[in-house]
């Protein structure tokens, strides 16, 4: 039983896991040789059989997504390394410490999909991860794993690293494609989905860094071996980023299906100073918060969804009993307000209003009507305030800003009311 896939090399060879020499010495590019001898359709079936689900946030089955790819050429693979969901820092580690693993996954995926030009879109604040990936590309090109007639197979591929410039919204796949086309990073209305009309209107697959980093292992070991790891609907290992009030923050590659208690207390060492857990965010700033009564529920994509939140990008942000949750919610809403692209009125205006209302509650200027106003503005972005969220906007950024507000109202309304009760009335 495998318990680690993505981080074995970097753990065993901390000082040079990024180099081609170490990659080859530890079995690197054997999956590519194997894949190039396979029929692309068989390869695609294997990935479908793996039950690998997207690691960027939405959790969509990777093989199914590949199956939607349109018939026309040229077609593109775009790896999403725009990792910007607050609390998430796993792709940064995968890029810095094992860039060849991602690159081999990209080459295999491109071969399977008939792609000759692939892109890696890396967020602008990650120049070092981008440098490491570019160095891997240069090494692989010189050694014949990339470029024309790869390993004598007749298959050609170029990979371009594209640096973003500080816009969270470019992690949304259609915004990312607009950005890559040299436009403002504004999400597109779907359909058409990128698989049909994506980059330059060609069929395009957009996959997260972690998702594609799993591909070499799947090719080497078979899709069914991957599917056999962990719970049926959350197959494989998963990188979790733990941060906040936690004794051992960091990235942990684990098999899903353990409990939140296991993850927070056993693996990440619990809360500093022996303090009590107040709440945690189970899957990045966009996700509704969990409170301690859910500590013994399983960490799987489906269980977290059934409990009213999402595993998202795998970012777990822990808050202890001393946390001012209004301040925490304000900080998250401020993020979304700043990152709203401005296309859709409910999000552009709504997130701004929500940020201001939370600010004045936090700073002693709250008004009795503010709770109703916050919920009303939230409802205009995400009608019904239900989970999974409805939206009046093109993309899910608006509803993401609603998550901390509903979390606050569902679990800590008394704290908000107390803060408003103590406010000094403004004449």
């Amino acid at each position: 039983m495998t318990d680690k896939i993505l981080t074995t090399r970097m753990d065993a060879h901390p000082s040079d896991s990024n180099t081609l020499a170490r990659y080859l010495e530890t079995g690197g590019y054997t999956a590519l040789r194997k894949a190039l001898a396979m029929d692309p359709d068989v390869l695609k079936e294997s990935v479908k059989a793996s039950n690998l689900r997207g690691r960027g946030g939405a959790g969509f089955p990777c093989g199914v997504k590949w199956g939607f790819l349109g018939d026309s050429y040229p077609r593109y693979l775009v790896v999403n390394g725009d990792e910007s969901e607050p609390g998430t820092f796993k792709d940064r580690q995968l890029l810095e410490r094992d860039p060849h693993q991602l690159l081999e996954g990209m080459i295999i995926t491109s071969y399977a999909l008939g792609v000759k030009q692939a892109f890696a879109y890396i967020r602008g604040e990650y120049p070092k991860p981008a440098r490491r990936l570019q160095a891997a590309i240069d090494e692989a090109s010189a050694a014949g794993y990339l470029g024309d007639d790869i390993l004598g197979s007749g298959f050609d591929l170029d990979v371009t690293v594209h640096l973003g410039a500080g816009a969270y919204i470019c992690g949304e796949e259609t915004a990312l494609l607009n950005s890559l086309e040299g436009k403002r990073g504004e999400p597109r209305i779907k359909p058409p989905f990128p698989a049909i009309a994506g980059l330059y209107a060609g069929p395009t697959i957009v996959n997260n860094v972690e998702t594609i980093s799993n591909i070499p292992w799947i090719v080497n070991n078979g899709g069914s071996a991957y599917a056999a790891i962990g719970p049926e609907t959350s197959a494989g290992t998963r990188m979790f980023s733990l941060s906040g009030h936690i004794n051992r923050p960091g990235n942990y590659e684990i098999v899903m299906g353990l409990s939140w208690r296991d993850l927070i207390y056993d693996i990440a060492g619990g809360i500093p100073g022996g303090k009590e857990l107040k709440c945690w965010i189970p899957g990045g700033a966009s996700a509704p918060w969990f409170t301690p009564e859910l500590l013994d529920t399983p960490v799987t994509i489906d269980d977290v969804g059934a409990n009213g939140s999402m595993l998202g990008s795998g970012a777990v942000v822990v808050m202890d009993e001393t946390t001012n949750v209004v301040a925490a919610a304000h900080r998250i809403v401020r993020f979304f307000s700043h990152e709203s692209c401005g296309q859709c009125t409910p999000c552009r205006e709504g997130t701004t209003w929500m940020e201001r209302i939370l600010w004045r509650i936090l700073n002693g200027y709250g008004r009795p009507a503010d709770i109703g106003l916050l919920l009303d503005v939230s409802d205009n972005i995400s009608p019904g305030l239900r989970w999974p969220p409805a939206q009046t906007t093109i993309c899910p950024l608006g509803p993401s800003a609603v998550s901390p507000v509903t979390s606050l109202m569902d679990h800590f309304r008394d704290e908000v009311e107390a803060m408003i009760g103590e406010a000094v009335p403004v004449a």
Partner: protein
Amino acid sequence: MTNAIEHWSASNQDRARVLLDSYPDRRSAVMPLLYLASLEHGHVTEDAMREVSDLTGMSAAQVQSVASFYTMYKRDDVGTYLISVCTSISCFLRGADDVLDAVEREAGTPDGETSEDGLLSVEHVECIGACGGAPAVQVNYEFVEGVRPDKAQALVRWLRDARPRVVLADEMQQLFGSEQSFDWAIAGVEGAIAPVPAFGPYGSAEDGR
């Protein structure tokens, strides 16, 4: 087309040509070209946008629409050292506001401004992907993690006094950092020489000292 950048350094002119050839459509090169133009002009000036417009075949208005969308394209002067303090949720929970305060006071420069001598710019930023090493700071987009207020002050003083030509994450981490998001392990030999992401094809990376 490329005669619009005849006054650029020879190496940056070469880089611009490589970038234009890296994409199926010239327009896609607008983002890296804006970084390159920032290096030439210090920030994204009107001239910079006109040059990028000539290179990509986009209208100047289209270039401006892109430049104004992304926070990392600076349209005002930026100091030699751009100090970015993360104040998003994970860093906030670990005391980032005190770090920002310490940086502002030591630099004598409020959030969003540049010091009068043009050396230091201070900004608060949204999540930079260093949550496991919170609170985190970047100088010219190179990371320092696990930064306490006193170390943040020391970092500002060091930038002012030592004026490193190349900003190296490993060096800053050793001097001013503590907890890291993950073990960096592999020595970083490249660093930033300007307040633009130090990525080779965009022209600012070079070997460290």
